């Protein structure tokens, strides 16, 4: 019981410590503006990390999400620019763009999932491969440069990132909904249960009438769709896609999942932990910007130290499980 509460509170404690540190370092840290900024920018990685939680819980891995985001953004921009003359600027154009993003995300996830479940290749290899493929394709389509959304269209689309209701911007709202649905799916649906069972022991799951391949496939497809959703919110922010869009997002998403207490080997997933993990990572960046702590060259080092420390706080769990 003591271990349980330690492991549960570990990441939360780290998050609270960071908030206190931030408030101490800069008076504006707790301003509505800054909080909105941090939450909104966590939303992209956040949604992806929620999907990644299911993939990892069921014993998989996806290294391609960052490139996939770049690829989806590229396709979405291309599609919107192409449809612009026909649809004109307005809600239909934006909706069509969103449909393209979700569709491409779904197909990309499906491609990963099929290669992993049908062809039986290690997830690490498949997604390492598609990581290269997606990123090259964007670079190629953009001819080495940047794909930009038409300026007018972008102005129209902009509020999807910057606007909102009740003073809460859309990315935050959508992320919150995704997180809550994800937590529900993990805890309260068959899908989540099967993910845990497969990650824990796929043979047992297969013997218990769980359609192992189908569930695994669904985790990759769901992740693809969530990457699509993240892209829908990302494009109005930057209005462009290039070979460097979404660089290293995969590492950040996986790190958030692990910091949140999900086991890398699968079998146990915690969506709310992932959300906390994402916030921890965003806050570290934010705090480094809040204060002139040290040479900017050392940002990476401080980041590294804090990540390790955040996990040390939940060490009780790992060592108890390790034996």
């Amino acid at each position, binding site marked *: 019981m003591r271990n349980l509460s330690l492991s549960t509170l570990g990441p939360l404690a780290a998050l609270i410590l960071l908030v206190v540190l931030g408030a101490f370092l800069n008076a*504006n840290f707790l301003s509505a503006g*800054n909080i909105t900024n941090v939450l909104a920018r966590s939303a992209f990685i956040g949604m992806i990390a929620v999907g990644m939680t299911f993939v990892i819980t069921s014993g998989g891995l996806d290294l391609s999400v960052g490139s996939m985001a770049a690829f989806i953004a590229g396709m979405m921009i291309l599609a919107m620019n192409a449809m612009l003359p026909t649809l004109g600027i307005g809600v239909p154009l934006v909706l069509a763009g969103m449909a393209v993003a979700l569709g491409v995300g779904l197909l990309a996830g499906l491609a990963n999932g099929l290669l992993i479940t049908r062809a039986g290749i290690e997830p690490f290899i498949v997604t390492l491969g598609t990581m290269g493929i997606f990123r090259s394709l964007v670079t190629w389509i953009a001819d*080495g440069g940047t794909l930009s959304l038409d300026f007018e269209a972008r102005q129209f689309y902009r509020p999807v990132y910057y606007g909102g209701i009740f003073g809460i911007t859309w990315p935050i709202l959508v992320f919150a909904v995704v997180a809550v649905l994800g937590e529900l799916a993990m805890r309260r649906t068959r899908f989540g249960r099967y993910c845990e069972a497969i990650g824990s022991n796929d043979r047992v799951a297969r013997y218990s009438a769980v359609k192992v391949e189908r569930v695994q496939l669904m985790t990759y497809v769901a992740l693809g769709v969530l990457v699509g959703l993240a892209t829908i919110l990302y494009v109005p922010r930057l209005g462009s896609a*290039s070979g460097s869009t979404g660089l290293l997002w995969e590492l950040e998403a996986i790190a958030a999942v692990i910091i949140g207490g999900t086991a890398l080997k699968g079998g146990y997933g915690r969506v709310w932990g992932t959300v906390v993990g994402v916030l921890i990572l965003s806050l570290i960046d934010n705090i480094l910007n809040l204060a002139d702590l040290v040479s900017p060259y050392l940002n990476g080092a401080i980041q590294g130290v804090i990540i390790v420390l955040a996990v040390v706080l939940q060490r009780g769990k790992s060592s108890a499980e390790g034996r």
Partner: protein
Amino acid sequence: AEDKTYTIGVSIPSATHGFMGGLNWHAQDTIKRLEATYPNVKFVLATAGEPGKQVDDIEDMLATRNIDGLVVLPFESEPLTGPVKAVKDAGKWVTVVDRGLSQPGIEDLYVAGDNTAFGQVAGEYFRENLPSGAKVVILRGIPTTLDNERVDAFEKAIDGSGIEVLDKQHGNWNRDDAFTVMQDYLSKYPKIDAVWAADDDMALGVMEAIAAAGRTDEMWIVGGAGMKEIIKRVMDGDKQVPVDVTYPPAQISSAIEMTTLHFVSAAPVSGRFIIGSTLVTPENAAQFYFPDSPF
């Protein structure tokens, strides 16, 4: 306005390759110097590894550091245009360095190198010093718009000269990658007359590969940006690196200095300052040689 204090935000890409390393060094050096000179000016420096992070940094400066002015070297033009415009719309001074925004008229001050000239100056040197039918290879940078501009300008400059470009692969402005790519060029092409490495870091890797293959006398190399090792060689009349093309990382210093001047003095500093790319030859090399810079 002596008693009023000002905060200036500086947002640049992180030191992922030699040129950016030099730029980072100049930015920090300038900030240190200016902070000592003007006690009432504070600087906030942030470095980013990708455009999204740079947007985060700028948002943070606006929301929490109450900056009065921003000096920004956009990682990429497109994605940074909106966020920088938001800074401008908040009534702040904006200085854009090196890579222009995709919409005109946002910035108060624009300080930049000239990518087109960078490619063109090198191209013209090739045109003038190689016979028709000469074979050259190109090492490109990281796939970006500015790399495209340079390569296009280079190719335009040699267009019609009869010089043949055998190959152009990405060396990513990285010494190791350039070394590998050059090794493979050397295996592939029995005869190469000259190499345009487009960056001095890459030029060093290229020279190493050529030396290892024992083909030092066969070809010469032109890099770019003005790294001290290369300038030194030009100065010493090394036949392998006859010239270099400047693209000074110190442009960030000018940008920061001019922005600071705007706040601490009445001097009018707005406008566009384009720092052209010059050909460094053994004759003029001494004036481009800064032995203390890490770049």
